[in-house]
Every structure is written in C-alpha cells, then in structure tokens.
C-alpha cells in the first residue's frame, strides 16, 4: 500500500508528520464516503427517474424536517470533531519544546541562509542532528517568503518586519526538500533548500570538519565562498578601496606599518593571527574593530582564506 500512500503524501520525515497524516486520511475517507453517497444518489436518481414523457407527474414533496436536521447536525458534529483534532495538532506544531536547538533563518530573493548559535552560516543547506528538536527563528530581508518542508508537514511565512518561528524534530536521517511557498518573484520556484538530518556520528563529523561538499572544494574557491558567507566582504574590499579594514587587493607579501610603529610582512602567519587575534596587530590608520574568528573557522577554512587572499593580485 506504500504506493497508495505516496500518491497523496511524501514520506514522513518529522515527529509531527504522522499526526497530520492521520487527520488527512480521516478526512480523505470521510470525503470519499460522502462523495460516493452524493454522487451515487445523483446518478441513481438521474437514471431511475429519467423523464419518460412530457406528461410525467411528480409528487409534491417540499421538505422533510427530520432529514434536513439530520444532514445539518451530523456534518456539524463531524466538522467540530475535525476542528478540534486539527487544532490540537496545530498547537503541538507551533509551540516548540524548551530544549530546542535554535537556528536563525533569513530568507531573501532567492536564497535561504541559516545561522547556527556558534556563528556558523550556511546557504541553502541546513544540517541538523537526528532526534533533537530544532527551532527556526525566521526573518526576511525583502519580501514575504514561506519556508515549507513537505516531508515534515510544516510551513511558515517569513516576514520582513518581525520574527516568525517553527520547529521540527526528525527521527529519520536523510535529505528533505525545502521550497518557498509565498510568491516572491522571478526566482520563486527555484528558491529551494535542503535539510540534511544526520545521525549522531555524521553530525559530530560535520561539526568538526564541515559539510561534505565543501571538503573537496579547492582552497581558493572555498576561500571565496567564505569571504562572502562569513562577512569578510563587509570590511575588506577586493578592488583596493579602503573600507573598515585594509583592502585585500595585492595585500599578500606587502609590508604593513602597524599603529605601534612595528613593520610586518603580510604572510601566512600574519593572516592567521589577524583572523584569530585581530587585536594583536592593528595596521596604522585603522581601528581595532574586527571580531575574533577563534572557534568559528576550521583550520582548513583559514587556509582557504589565506589562499584566497594570495590570489588577489
């Protein structure tokens, strides 16, 4: 019967999905019952009482109180039952457990960006551990979007002026499709993301070594990705224009004069120290405003940034 289930609903990926599906199937079979009843009567009457001659006589039946009460009250009670059922599961779906891991999510035309509590960010991919509640705190940078995970049976709009949230817990490792369901223009239908639910071992490995698809990426390319994903670009330009920090154009191998009078050569160790302990050396003419990336970048990512800086001639 799996093919029949799949005809209607995607595979259940969250702890919430079975509750939604149960009500879905209940309404479906109830609808089938009423449709067969009504359509059956319509077709039966149309055949049985088909006009035989223009002089057919019909009985003067105008109403029947009992019948009319029956087909008002029985559906009313069914509807009320469905209301309470749907409401109960809706409340479970909207109130996150207190121990949920919080991840902030930003929607903008036409990408989803996730930010973990430790400052890690990823675009279009969310990695979460299996069996742990995860709460998404969501906002939009521009128009309305809506974060829909069919496998989890949840969906919530993402607004520019306030935070919305939703939560899920998945007990089934795997990849889940995310789609935007609030129309947002040209790229609406490609504003996808995926949620990767990992078992504990994989998740630990991910935390230590980063997403698998980034591991084989050439260093300079990864550095370029990090340059924008980790916010370097807000202060360090690539075209020589002075920003909050020195531009990276042609910086590698230069001699820099520090605020305290020392002269330093921009080499691998200088860059590494600048990333992890930015206050240790401040170039003359700049303020020491850079935050430390200690614990936020993996070793390979620092290497990647160094490689990227080297490539900026």
């Amino acid at each position, binding site marked *: 019967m799996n093919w029949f289930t799949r005809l*209607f*609903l*995607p595979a259940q990926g969250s702890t919430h999905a079975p*509750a*939604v599906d149960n009500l*879905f199937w209940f*309404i*479906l079979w109830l*609808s089938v019952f*009423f*449709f067969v009843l*009504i*359509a059956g*009567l*319509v077709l039966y*009457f*149309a055949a049985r*009482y*088909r*006009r*035989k001659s223009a002089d*057919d*006589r*019909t*009985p*003067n*039946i*105008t*109403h029947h109180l009992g*019948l*009319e009460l029956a087909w*008002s009250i029985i559906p009313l009670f069914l*509807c*009320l039952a*469905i*209301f309470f*059922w*749907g*409401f109960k*599961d*809706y*409340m479970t779906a909207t109130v996150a457990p207190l121990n949920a891991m919080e991840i902030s999510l930003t929607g903008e035309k036409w990408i989803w960006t996730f930010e973990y509590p430790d400052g890690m960010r990823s675009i279009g991919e969310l990695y979460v551990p299996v069996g742990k509640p995860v709460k998404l705190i969501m906002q939009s940078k521009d*128009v*309305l979007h809506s974060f*829909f995970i*069919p496998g989890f049976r949840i*969906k919530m*709009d993402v607004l*520019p002026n306030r935070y919305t949230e939703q939560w899920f817990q998945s007990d089934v490792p795997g990849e889940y*499709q995310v789609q*935007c*369901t*609030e*129309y*947002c*223009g*040209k790229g*609406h*239908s*490609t504003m996808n993301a995926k949620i990767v639910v990992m078992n504990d071992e994989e998740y630990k490995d991910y935390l230590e070594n980063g997403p698998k698809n980034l591991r084989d990426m050439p260093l300079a390319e990864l550095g370029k990705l990090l340059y924008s994903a980790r916010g370097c670009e807000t202060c360090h330009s690539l075209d020589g224009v002075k920003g909050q920090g020195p531009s990276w154009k042609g910086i590698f191998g230069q001699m820099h004069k520090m605020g305290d009078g020392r002269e330093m050569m921009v080499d691998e160790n200088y860059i590494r120290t600048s990333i992890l302990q930015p206050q240790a050396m401040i170039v003359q003419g700049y303020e020491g405003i850079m935050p430390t990336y200690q614990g936020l970048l993996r070793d390979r990512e620092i290497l990647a940034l160094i490689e990227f800086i080297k490539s900026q001639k």
Partner: protein
Amino acid sequence: MATTTTPVVHKGHEAPKDYLNDQPGIWSWMTTVDHKRIGVMYLWSVLGAFLLGGLFALALRLELLTPKEDFMNAETYNKVFTLHGAIMVFLFIIPAVPAALGNFVLPLMLGAKDVAFPRLNLASYYIYVTGAIMAVAAMVTGGVDTGWTFYTPYSTTTTGAVTLMALSVFVLGFSSIFTGINFVATVHKLRAPGMGWFDLPLFVWGIYATAIIQVLATPVIGITTVLLVMERVFQVGIFDARLGGDPVLFQHFFWFYSHPAVYIMILPGMAIISELIPTHSKKHIFGYRAIAFSSIAIALISFIVWGHHMFTSGQSQLAAAIFSFLTFLVAIPSGVKVFNWVATMYRGSIALNTPMLYALSFLLLFTIGGLTGIFLGALSVDIHLHDTYFIVAHFHYVMMGGTVIAFIGGLFHWWPKIYGRMYNERWGQISAWLVFWGFNVTFFSQFFMGSQGMPRRYFSYLDQFQPWHVASTVGSWILALGLFVAAGTLLASLRKPKDAPANPWGSKTMEWETQSPPIAHNFEHTPVLTHGPYDYSPEPVGRRR
C-alpha cells in the same frame, strides 16, 4: 395555469417586437436602460474576459508541460498567471452571474419592468468597461507580476503597472457595488403583486444574498487598493515594513473583502442550480426555506472567516483557531444545499438535457470542491497544504467546477429566453461531457501533486511532479475544446430565426410567462402571482408553506 403568453400584435409584415429589435441601432444599445440589454452587454463582455483569461490559462498549462523553460521565461510566466487570476476574478466571475444573467433574469422573475435604478445599472456597466480598459492598459504597459492577491511588500516594490491594475480593481469594485445596490432595492420594492419573500425563486434569494455581500464587502477592497497605490506612489508607509508598515495588515484587508468575494462568486452559481434542478426534474424544490436561509447564513458568516487564508502568515494561534472554527460553520449551509438539490431529484421527472447535464456536473464537482475544503479548514492539515496545488485544485473545483459550470448551465437554460432561439441539443450535451471530463483531468491531478508538496505559482518544478503536470495540461485541452463546442453551439443558434416558445422547459418561474425574447417592457400586463415558483405537482395544495 396562469401563464399568459399574450400573442404579440403583428404590424403587417414586421417581425414581432421584442427587446432585441425594439429600438434599432448601436446607439440605442449604448444608451439603453433596459436591464435585459444591459445584461446582454455584460454577458458578451464577461465572455470576452473569460476567453482572454482562458487563453492565459492554456498558455500557463502549456509552459508547465515540462519543468524547464519552454516558450516563456519566469518573468513572463509570473505576469501571465497574475493576469489569468485577476481577469478571471475581477472581470469574469464576479460580474458573470449577477451582472449578466442576474440582470437579465432577476427583474423578470419578480414580474418587474426593470431594476429599481435603471440608469445606475447602465452606469455600472460603463464603470465595468472603464475598469476593464484600465486592466488591459495595465497589461500592455508593463504588465503586473504580483499575483491577483497583490501581497505587499512585493506589490509595492516590484516594477510594472501595479498602480494602474490596483486602480482598475478599485473602479471595478464600484461597478459591483452599484449592481448590488440595484438588486437589493429591486428585490425589496419591485416584486409582483402578491409575491411575498417566500414566493421568490431561489435564484433571487441567491442573488440577493450576493448583493448584500457586494455592497458591504467591496468598499474594503476599494480602500485597500487605494492604500496600496498611496504606498507605491507617495511612499506612505502602511504595508511596507521599511516605511513602518505591516505587510500582514494588507493580507487582513485583502481577505476581508476577498473571502466574502469567494461567496460573491459561488452564491450566484448555487442560485442558478436551485433553478435548473427543479425545472428539469419537473419537481418542487426540496427544502425551500433551508436553501434560502442557507444563502443568507453563508453571506453573513462569510465576513468572519477571512483569516483561514492566513494560517501560516504569522497571525496568532488564537486567531487561527477562531477562524478555523468559523470556517467549519460556513461549511454546513453549503452542505445543506447540496443535500437539498439531490433530494429534489428524488422521484422527479429528470430530463437529461444540456442545462441539466451541467447542473449534474455542478453537483459532482462542487461536492469535491466542498469536501476538499474540509482538509483546508483543519489547521494542522492546512499548514501542509497551504499554497500548494491542492489549494489551486480546491478553488478551481469550487469556482470553475461550481460557478462557471453553473453559469454555462444557466446560459443554456436561459438562452432561449435571451435570444428566442433553441440551440442544437446534441452539441450542447457533447459540450457538457467534454467540459466535465476535461475539467476533472485538468484539476484532479492537481490534488495529488499538491498534497505531495508541489507549491503553487511555480514556473519550474521538481521532476517528480511532471507526470501530474502533463495530465493537467492534456486535460486543459479537452476542457478548452468543450468550452469552444459550447460557444459554437450557442453562436450557431443565432443564425436561425427565432423559434423558441415562451416556456420551452415548462418552468414555473415568472420569466417564462412572457414571450421569448421578452418585449422591451417585459410583460404585456403586470403579472399577478397565481402559483409558486416550484409548483410542478398537478395538485398543488394552495401555496407552499
């Protein structure tokens, strides 16, 4: 039987006078205050809009045949689906039944000479035309890509002719309000002598309930579009968060009109079915008062369920719960009507002619539309289904399978009255079968892909959904074929001389008591009520209770 088809006085060789040839020339049409002529002008206008909106729909379905770009790009697609929705809602389906068929039939059913305010009626038509021209102008001067719902802040930040389109909706709203005012006054003041409220045909009850919603709800969309324009043009911060506004406020305003508007669309469809089934079953309607009062109940409750469009919008859980609860309440009166229509057929004398085939299609399709609404009223299930193709399928089953099918059925039913000609019955029936199956193939497939997670308003999609999209697209061709056959059947009848008797269906409502087509002033003598609208039984004991 008090049917008084007074023979028309023939003056020499002239054709018998009727409203079509009473005053010659185009100018007499453009300046007419005859509700029948205005109804006919509305009819052709809304059919033109239906054709245009339908061509857009066919283009959308064709593009969706494959997941990739076939012959239009994403921007064009977004404009086309916006225009399809906006044209179908504002230019076709809202005016279709009340302003076209309602205008023609309602005063006749009341035994009146015209509507209460004939000049207002003509003004309403010209306002409609103005709004339509503005909408077409918006299309050709940049187009609109907001969806027919104009959600902010997308609609206040995107390029294109959104301002003009919003103003067009504002203007069209007045046309709708004027029609509503006219019908409310007409039903209250112009009923034939002896015709009490419970002697009204149920079509009149349905149109009356619709008119109440038109008058009370439409001003809200007017105000909303004006606010939208103020924000777009003058940067007044109402909905845009960057200007201190709230985008969700727009959704509240919009649906406060547009949910009742759903009933502006479906109640007239129900009104038509309440005539077609008793007439073509030759049987008294079952549960007259239940149907009449359920129309009024729907009209009233429809004002307090708008939030069920916004379960995922960030509104509070309490609000969501209340709206879900009220939504289930509004389901009941619709269900009651369906049961009453079915019961009307019991022991009837059912003629399976073209209007009745459309009415039976309505019963089956509207039942599916209504039952799938239960899924969407249930909070937890709606969260999954919201803004997927399940919604698209659901509202097409209600709007097209319901209202449009009823409208076409009504057109076949009243066509002999409007043009005095019988159409080819065989081709009419073929059209009904094609439309029924084409419709189901097009839209039933969308339920499956919707509940599987296919979002609406998608230019491209995941490969897994393609078989369903192919089915839907093929269905759209069958549906289009059926509609063209229906149009051809009706148009072909215009080529022959007027041959329709006054009352081809043996109906008991008053519009059939005058000749087909009626004379300019409807009745030779003020008709007097002698029997109820559904007294088909040979020995009606007095009147209905």
